[in-house]
């Protein structure tokens, strides 16, 4: 294929019903698919409903279970991994504290009764501060992850390597990888641990919700209706970067104040120049060579407007 990347189809939320099976058929995939439900954590193997929806032959890669096996048998790696995760959680806590203060400052300035031009300038400064915090946080997370990989070389640890061989064998006989959503941290970390994206090179991906998020370059966590306070979106980690220049926000109907023009404007400016796409049930992003070539989703714009049914 001369370096051509296989197509990727990102789909929206699977709640209240699965439509990954329909997406697989839309992608023209015939034959066995490899399934990843590691985002479901301990419920990873409770996949019968999804398998039924997919229709054809399915093999679950069981990444969550495999990771548990690695952590149980390779204590050194497990301890080092837990230590790294503790550090990353602390970094995340500190980033959130800074983010809260930046939002509070932006709010305090935005309610001043001063010239609109000056307020515009201040809004720009506020967004730049958020962008700086996001960038800095991502960089610091990546530095730790790179250092961890360099020090521990997980792919070369015997137990990880054993699982990688098994995963590679399954993928070699699969026609596509289907990636369900769920807990994005669990999903991302287990996919990284086994290097699944490298092992699946050459296969199409059909990824839903959280699964779609991890295939992009940056993963943002968001919820505008939290049980207390106001939701502040935060950058979580870098994804696998198979889909470029897009930030994916699943389940906008339940998670985003689509009528909050100012909030949407601030977020889209914060992630610019990336395209901001919100994906409800039934939404699609068709991706070729890393770029969105066709869409059926909501697109969010820097002026705070939303285009439902955006077609790319």
């Amino acid at each position, binding site marked *: 294929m001369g370096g051509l990347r296989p197509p990727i189809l990102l789909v929206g939320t699977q709640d209240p019903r699965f439509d990954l099976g329909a997406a697989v058929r839309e992608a023209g995939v015939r034959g066995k698919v490899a399934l990843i439900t590691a985002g479901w954590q301990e419920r990873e193997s409770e996949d019968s409903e999804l398998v039924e929806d997919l229709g054809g032959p399915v093999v679950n890669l069981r990444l969550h279970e495999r990771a548990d096996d690695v952590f149980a048998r390779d204590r050194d790696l497990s301890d080092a991994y837990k230590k790294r995760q503790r550090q990353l959680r602390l970094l995340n806590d500190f980033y959130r504290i800074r983010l809260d203060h930046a939002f509070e400052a932006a709010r305090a300035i935005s309610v001043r009764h001063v010239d609109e031009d000056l307020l515009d300038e201040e809004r720009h400064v506020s967004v730049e501060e958020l962008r700086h915090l996001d960038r800095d946080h991502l960089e610091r997370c990546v530095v730790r992850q790179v250092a961890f990989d360099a020090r521990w070389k997980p792919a070369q640890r015997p137990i990880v390597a054993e699982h990688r061989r098994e995963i590679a064998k399954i993928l070699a006989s699969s026609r596509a990888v289907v990636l369900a959503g769920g807990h*994005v941290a669990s999903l991302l970390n287990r996919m990284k641990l086994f290097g699944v994206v490298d092992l699946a090179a050459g296969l199409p991906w059909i990824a839903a919700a*959280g699964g779609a998020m991890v295939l992009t370059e940056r993963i943002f966590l968001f919820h505008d209706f939290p*049980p207390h306070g106001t939701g502040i979106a935060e950058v979580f980690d870098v994804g696998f970067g198979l889909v470029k220049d897009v930030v994916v926000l699943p389940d906008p109907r339940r998670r985003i104040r689509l009528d909050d023009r100012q909030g949407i404007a601030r977020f889209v400016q914060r992630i610019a120049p990336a395209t901001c796409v919100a994906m409800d049930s039934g939404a699609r992003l068709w991706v070729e060579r890393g770029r969105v070539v066709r869409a059926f989703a909501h697109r969010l714009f820097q002026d705070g407007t939303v285009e439902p049914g955006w077609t790319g």
Partner: protein
Amino acid sequence: MDGMSITRAIDALASGPKDPAAVDAFLAAHTFPLVEGPAITFVFRGEAEAVNLKHWVYGLPSSQPLARLEGTDLWHLTFELPRGSRVEYKLEVVRGGAGQWFQDPLNQSLARDPFGANSVAHSEGYEVPEWIHPDPEARPGTMEDEHWVDSPTFGRRSVAVYLPARFRRTRRYPLLVVHDGHDYLRYASLGTILDNLIQRLEIPDMIVVLTSSPNRLIEYADDERHARWLTEELVPHLERALPIDARPQTRCLMGASFGAVAALSTAWRYPGFYGRLLLQSGSFAFTDIGDRNHRGPLFDPVVAFMNRLRAQPIPMAERVFVSCGMYESLIYENRSFVPALQSTGMDVRYVEARDGHNWENWRDRLREGLSWLFPGPLLLVYE
């Protein structure tokens, strides 16, 4: 300003024919108490020498007479109730010189507590939270009603243990210990709320232990034995028996009224052991001078404790959620105490509600309190 006044339904009735049929029609046409904008009208129909509204709203006279609508057996009282208010009350009907307290016969809405049940009224802007009702999508946790603990301090005591629906022995769970936990279960829908908040990912799966004391007014009032029982006996026992994440930040004490005092004084006696505190309408009585509080001798140990703590606040936990009703007398104590808590550097969240010292007030704050102390994976899960 006459043009701006609102003609209330009771005024309309008063200005028309006041025969029994008109009263019947008035009662049939409305639900009671009658909420019209900011005004609330309490109504009673029946022969009596007097009818009084008895309520527990601190700041208003606790007994207010209803007026008889001339020529009828209808009694009424109207006053303004701020938006978002919730009030528990009874009606006192005086006959033969003796008053008897009743639930409002025209109002089916009741709030139960260990002493019985009160009628409930609320103004515009208050809604019963939807997350207190059983959700068919939420898997129920399991409750072990009698989990016995041998205690050198108090002998053998039973607690109830809530395990989340998808409980697995291979995981480690946060621990929440609830004072008066059985009452929280009965009167504040705690079990249903835990099921719902866990299902919605607003709090993590957690193990919740419900304690009750046979002598709470003594044991909860800064009693060293109670703190020892919880910290050196109950929690270690639970950590041996159940897969509990034994870290301060995953360990929480919770309580209301004297139960909040017990939670606070236990955390104070064991600083750093409990990383989370949820304190509702704490009976945090104190004095600025002298050691006698107007609340009576049961409060004396509380006053001594609070005075000591206010003089030298310490960071006993990491996060503290404090809530109190504006319509309870303890609002003064709670408002006064929050700055002292904050001065220690602890992360303190303080919430007020237009409600009184009652279980439904405490129920209504549980979502905010629990999800702030123990944020669930809501932000991380995208199905």
